[in-house]
């Protein structure tokens, strides 16, 4: 909501601009499916996507992004998926212009596009990546971290000493959509994550203009213990029950009985 009008000669015609879409969104968070949840996603946007490796990734949102065919995307995500799953699916279709990640191994197509210059890559220390999301969520425009000081990651960035140690100034991310995956969610948008599928998902909630949560189980408001909610609904704009989770395991390691 921004000041859109001005005073006319007669002192009339002053209007506070209100985005009716935003209001409509707030009234009802629950949407039927990924298609409705991704309404408004467009070419050239910056997206945040939760998950670590293939663990806790928003599978339904990614599938819908492929279906929509939006291109020229900037994706902020700790990893870039594998060739045929996760963000690898968007890479295959060349929908991503730029990746912002901490680690992008395990993906041949990624490597090919990166080396050929088709894909721009911005590598960021993992903790800095998490904190830049959390800063966006929390209205902190910038913060200082020791990570990357004295390395090429700090090139072009302000550095500064506090208590005898050097730090790098990092700014909050700006994104259009955040896609997160939770275990359980309620109609008020409250989220509960499971195990290490939590990872970057909570940090990205409310860190973009519109946060879309997909959940394995969607329950009525009041079904979750208010004391045990990982992300309060205020950080989530749209929520839907995801379908057919594959939950692929990247490195199946076991021990013998």
């Amino acid at each position: 909501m921004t000041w859109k009008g001005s005073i006319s000669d007669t002192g009339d015609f002053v209007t506070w601009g209100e985005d009716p879409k935003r209001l409509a969104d707030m009234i009802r968070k629950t949407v039927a499916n990924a298609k409705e949840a991704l309404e408004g996603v467009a070419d050239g946007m910056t997206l945040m996507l939760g998950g670590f490796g293939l663990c806790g990734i928003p599978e339904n949102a990614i599938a819908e992004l492929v279906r929509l065919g939006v291109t020229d995307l900037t994706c902020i995500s700790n990893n870039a998926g594998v060739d045929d799953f996760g963000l690898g699916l968007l890479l295959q279709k060349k929908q991503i212009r730029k990746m912002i990640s901490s680690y992008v191994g395990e993906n041949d197509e990624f490597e090919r596009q990166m080396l050929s210059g088709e894909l721009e890559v911005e590598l960021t220390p993992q903790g800095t990546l998490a904190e830049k999301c959390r800063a966006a969520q929390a209205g902190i425009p910038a913060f200082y971290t020791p990570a990357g000081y004295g390395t090429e990651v700090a090139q072009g960035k302000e550095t500064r000493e506090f208590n005898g140690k050097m730090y790098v100034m990092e700014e909050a991310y700006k994104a259009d959509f955040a896609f997160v995956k939770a275990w359980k969610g309620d109609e008020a948008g409250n989220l509960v994550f499971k195990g290490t599928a939590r990872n970057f998902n909570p940090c990205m909630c409310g860190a973009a203009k519109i946060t879309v949560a997909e959940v394995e189980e969607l329950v009525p408001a009041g079904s979750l213990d208010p004391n045990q909610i990982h992300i309060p609904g205020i950080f989530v704009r749209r929520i839907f029950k995801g379908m057919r989770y594959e939950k692929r395991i990247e490195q199946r390691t076991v021990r013998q009985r």
Partner: protein
Amino acid sequence: MLDKNGIARRIAREVRDGYYVNLGIGIPTLVANFVRDDIQVEFQSENGVLGMGPFPYEGEEDPDLINAGKQTITTLPGASFFDSATSFAMIRGQHVDLTILGAMEVAENGDIANWKIPGKMVKGMGGAMDLVASAENIIVAMMHTNKAGESKLLNKCSLPLTGVACVRKIVTNMAVLEVSPDGFLLRERAPGVTVEDIKKATEGRLVVPSDVPEMQF
């Protein structure tokens, strides 16, 4: 001329379906009593709860469940508890849709003073500075004049500021005003109050449109 409940009743009309609302202490707290039943609103309290409900029935008070005014409360379905850093992440991150708070003074550019009177005991700003510095949509609820009859809507605040150029709308016992680039824009008159009355009670620049309707509730 409105009483405190009248101010709260008028402000309640600004609350929309789906809003997350933070209510300050005093008149703002009363707003919750007048919000329409057919819309869904979640009240946030900065000490760490979203989805506040009414006061508990006698005997059901829980010392571990209070609001920012330290009053015992209840929660509604869909409520959540969180720590103070997360609570102010909501506020600073502009996730709260509407902030309603009281003021000692408001300036025509939207400056607000509501925490300190030099020479008197200062209790502190609590969360007010975070709220006013962050919120996109701030409504001030206050009397138009102080006990000495002096205007609280000024060219410039005389008291130490809580925040700069942040107030968007003011609802007083006399009028509804918006902060505009040209000064206080008079939007509505309270029942029985004339534009002349408001002019007299307003020290700051007042922009009077050709039509200033009486408040609707």
